[in-house]
Each structure stands twice: as structure tokens, then as C-alpha cells.
């Protein structure tokens, strides 16, 4: 197939505006008469809000409104399940928003936010996903799931007992990865206003404008046709702008005050505002014959979903599907879980669950090679997917599977670098 685009060098349309500093990110747009809004977030990982006293804040000159859960018509949002409050009365993580303050200037809004008194009943919190999985652990989302196990994905292939019987070498190890923040360079910002048609217009940087629109409409009790989301330049996202951050709060403030509302996160607020990469605990047991052929894999992967479901089901599904790596293994048992805890919620991030398991399955390959006495390259060459291979999920690979070419290209570098151990 011939094409004039694929394979040619194309200058991206938006690059010129960016090198001259002309490109508009959401912090760069303003409207006449706008107010500024600032969020008050919970310092507790698990708590009930008993009361919010905004009298002192409201008495500060320039404060326009303090909004709380009772001001939200439908107080929920979420990409898979609407399990996340716009403004929380029941706190499931540090950083859950409890109130939003609107004022004539950002300085006044920040000063007023400090004057809002929130009374909490602090509850015991669970931070370890394996503890949270215990049957006696308090479920964080009882209406969604009876336990904290949001999702379980089992994959079975072949016969594991036969696999272990064939194995000359077995490596069993535990691997874990940590939370990672996307730290996209442009902190979240929103400009929301009610336009001359009476429509809610929200300008923001988002990965998912049509979803934002639906969630804003749902939370405010508006029709889809009454909400417009304009995506301005997106200053990095990497999955971290798939969920709602400030959009609904800005819209709610604009809808209530009929003033244009600007919100801008500081970097610190940004860390509290969006999802994280799932920390995963990965228990791997891998068996191979003495000539380096993989024969069995048993893996248990526990992903910390944190306080809300976000994309956890899809992420842990991908972890399970990719858990055997790009290698043919005839006998497989994989179980992946997404578990609620009181940690920051986990969501989409580059790789979407496929990145974490690499640490486990590739480390296992290196350890097996060492044990068997062949090179790390050799053990991979003996097991990698080729056209016609069957994956752990039973997929027969018929398309492009150029792993052998990839390894051939890096082989000279591996040799030059010596033993990868």
C-alpha cells in the first residue's frame, strides 16, 4: 500500500504556536468578571464530614460562595462507576474535596479556604490492599461491591500440575511497584461560565471531553445539550486527565453564582487531584526445563485501586493479559485483583497495567537464565512469541510479531555490555 503520509515527516500543526508561547492552555484564558475558586480537601484518608462551618469564610470581604455536598444536585462521577463524590461527605482518601470557595481574587479565595471549618469523624483506614481483601475488612464501597475486591480476573491455560512436573528449575519471587504520579507539566485549570444561551461552558485540558460533558451534566442535573466542554491545549496528560478533576466544581460554582469561574491547581493540589499509577504486588512462580523452555507460570497480581474505581478493572485486566510477557507458556494460572484501599485512587497511566508486570516476568527470565546457565538473551530467544504462537489467553498471533528481529538488533549491545546481571 502506498501512502503520502505514513513514513513521511510531517510538521505538527500546533508546534509553531507553542514555540512562540501563543498556545492557550486553560490557565491562559480569562473572562471579564471572573471569580476564582479554591478547593478544601480532606487531610484524613477515611472520615465522615460531620459539619462544615463557612460563616467566618463568608464574612471575609470578596468571598462570593462556599459550596458543599448539599449544593450538588447529583453528587457523583466516575469513568466506570459513579463512585466518586463531587464534594464528599464520606471521605475515602486524603485529598477528597469537601468544599469549594469562590471569591473575587485567588488570594481571597485561598485565605477564605483556611477559614472554613470542617469537622470530621476520623475512621480507621486501610492502606494495604492484601489487608483490605480480608473478609473482615470494612468495605469502602458497599453499594458497589460487598468486599473491597473490585475485580478479579482469572486466566487458566493447560495443566499447571503437569507444568510443574516438567520443570527442572522453578523460580518463585515477590515483586512490588509503587504509586507514580503522571506529573504532567501543566497543572489542572478550568474556566467555566454560563453563556448567553444559558448553557454551561467549561474550558479545560482533558483527555475525554465528551465524558467530562456527561459527568458535568449529570452532576448539575442538566441536559447534555446544556453543557459544552471546550478542550484547550493539553499540557501533558499520560492518563492523568481521563478522570474528572476540577471540571464539575468549577461548573457548579459558575452555575450557582452566575459568574465566570477560574480554577488553577498548584502543583501540590495537582498531586491530590488526579489518579496515580496502580502500585502492584506480584507473586510469580515460573518453571522451565533445563534447556530453557518455559513450562509453567503461576501469578497473583494485586493492584491497589485506592479509594475509587476509576479504570482499575480495565487496568488489572490488562495486567492479567500481559502477565506472561511475550513468551509462550503452555501451563498458566494467573489471577489479578483490583482492591479498594484508602490510598489515593489509581487510574490510567501510560501502559495501563501492562507496565508493572514487566518488572516481574522479565526479572523471572533473568533469574531462570542464571539458574539454568544460559544467557538472558538465549532464554528469551527460546520462548518468545512468533507468528502462530498462542498466548496465555488463547489468542493465536497471526499478525506482525517481530520480537526475534527486535532481539537480533539489541543482541550486539547486550554482548558489548557483558553480562546483564
Amino acid at each position, binding site marked *: 500500500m502506498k501512502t503520502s503520509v505514513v513514513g513521511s515527516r510531517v510538521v505538527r500543526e500546533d508546534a509553531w504556536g507553542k514555540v*512562540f508561547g501563543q498556545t492557550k492552555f486553560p490557565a491562559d484564558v480569562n473572562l471579564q468578571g471572573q471569580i476564582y475558586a479554591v478547593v478544601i480537601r480532606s487531610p484524613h484518608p477515611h472520615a465522615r464530614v460531620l459539619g462544615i462551618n463557612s460563616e467566618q469564610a463568608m464574612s471575609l470581604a470578596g468571598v462570593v460562595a462556599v459550596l458543599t455536598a448539599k449544593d450538588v444536585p447529583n453528587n457523583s462521577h466516575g469513568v466506570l462507576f459513579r463512585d466518586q463524590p463531587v464534594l464528599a461527605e464520606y471521605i475515602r482518601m486524603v485529598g477528597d474535596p469537601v468544599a469549594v470557595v469562590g471569591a473575587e481574587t485567588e488570594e481571597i479565595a485561598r485565605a477564605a479556604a483556611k477559614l472554613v471549618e470542617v469537622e470530621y469523624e476520623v475512621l480507621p483506614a486501610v492502606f494495604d490492599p492484601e489487608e483490605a481483601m480480608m473478609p473482615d475488612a470494612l468495605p469502602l464501597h458497599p453499594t458497589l461491591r460487598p468486599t473491597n475486591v473490585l475485580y478479579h480476573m482469572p486466566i487458566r491455560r493447560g495443566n499447571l500440575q503437569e507444568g510443574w512436573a516438567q520443570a527442572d528449575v522453578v523460580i518463585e519471587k515477590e515483586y512490588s511497584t509503587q504509586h507514580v504520579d503522571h506529573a504532567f507539566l501543566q497543572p489542572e485549570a478550568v474556566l467555566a461560565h454560563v453563556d448567553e444561551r444559558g448553557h454551561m461552558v467549561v474550558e479545560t485540558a482533558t483527555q475525554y471531553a465528551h465524558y467530562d460533558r456527561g459527568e458535568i451534566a449529570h452532576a448539575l442535573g442538566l441536559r447534555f445539550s446544556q453543557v459544552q466542554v471546550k478542550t484547550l491545549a493539553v499540557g501533558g496528560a499520560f492518563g492523568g486527565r481521563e478522570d474528572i478533576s476540577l471540571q464539575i466544581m468549577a461548573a457548579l460554582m459558575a452555575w450557582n453564582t452566575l459568574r465566570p469561574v477560574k480554577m488553577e491547581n498548584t502543583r501540590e493540589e495537582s498531586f491530590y487531584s488526579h489518579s496515580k499509577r496502580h502500585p502492584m504486588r506480584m507473586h510469580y512462580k515460573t518453571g522451565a526445563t533445563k534447556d530453557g523452555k518455559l513450562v509453567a507460570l503461576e501469578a497473583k497480581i494485586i493492584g491497589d485501586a485506592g479509594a475509587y474505581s476509576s479504570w482499575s478493572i480495565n487496568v488489572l485486566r490488562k495486567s492479567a493479559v500481559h502477565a506472561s510477557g511475550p513468551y509462550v507458556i503452555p501451563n498458566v494460572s494467573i489471577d489479578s485483583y483490583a482492591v479498594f484501599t484508602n490510598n489515593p485512587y489509581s487510574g490510567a497511566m501510560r501502559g495501563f497495567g501492562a507496565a508493572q508486570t514487566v518488572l516481574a516476568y522479565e526479572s523471572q527470565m533473568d533469574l531462570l537464565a542464571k539458574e539454568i546457565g544460559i544467557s538472558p538473551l538465549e532464554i528469551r530467544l527460546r520462548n518468545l512469541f512468533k507468528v502462530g504462537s498462542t498466548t496465555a489467553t488463547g489468542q493465536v498471533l497471526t499478525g506482525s510479531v517481530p520480537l526475534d528481529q527486535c532481539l537480533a538488533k539489541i543482541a550486539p549491545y547486550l554482548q558489548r555490555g557483558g553480562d546483564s546481571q
Partner: protein
Amino acid sequence: MIEIKLVVNNKPYTLGVEPSERLIDALRNRLGLLGTKEGCGEGECGACTVIMDGKTVNSCLVLAVQANGSVITSIEGVGNRRSPHPVQKAFVEVGAVQCGFCTPGMVLSAKNLLDKNSKPSNEEIGIAMSGNLCRCTGYDKILRAVKIAAEEGKE
């Protein structure tokens, strides 16, 4: 309010600023120069880089009053669509621009390097750009663009 005088992009200004006001706030809010970006507010990311009296600074760490009497170049003072600076041209052509939020700061760090050192080594380029973070992780192309701009400037 404290009165300061400064030159920004070759234009003289007299501004009344708050004692706690940062240079980035004065540039963005008082002068409307929105090309200067705030990424972290604590001097880590370099998105707010401007050139102040021949040195690159994080404008989030400089008080507006400290800029009194200074000559400042922000991204709006570098090149335009009719005649882009060699750094800007190279960034576009090499593909060193992704989300673009770091780009103004990157361009200014590169420009300031080339203003002082027209034949920088790779190491000198690396050092000059080390204060600017790119979370799209396009560093390779960014460094290549600076190299190409340096070579173009030599001709």
C-alpha cells in the same frame, strides 16, 4: 504597592507590584505575557524560565521587586511566524514540541546558551537545558534541536 521599572522584550514599563508578587505573576497578570508558564511554583520544572539581565531565571522564584531595573526577555520577545529564531525553527522541524507546556522555557534556555556560546558541545547543551523538565520525555529531540540551531547559527 511598590513601584518598579523594568524593560520587558525591549519595552520599558513602570509597574506597581505587591511586595509578595512574583515576577511570573507580574508578567502574566499585569503585562498579559501568558507564554510564561507555571508548572510547579518552586523552581523545579523551568516552565517559567525567562532571561533576566542575560541569565535564565525561574520567574516563579524571583520577586517582581527583585526585577526592578532589569532587562527581561520572555518568549513573546523571541521570534515570530515571519522570522522565527533558529531555536524555534529547529524545535518545530525536529519534532521537539509535544504538549508544548515546557517549550517556551526550553526555547529561552537554548536561546540564552547560543547568545553566549555559539558552538556549544553536547555537554554544554545538556547543562544549559538541565533546568527545564519535559514530562512528555522528548529530551532527545530537544537536545538535537538545540544542536541544529547552533549549527545553523554558525553558517
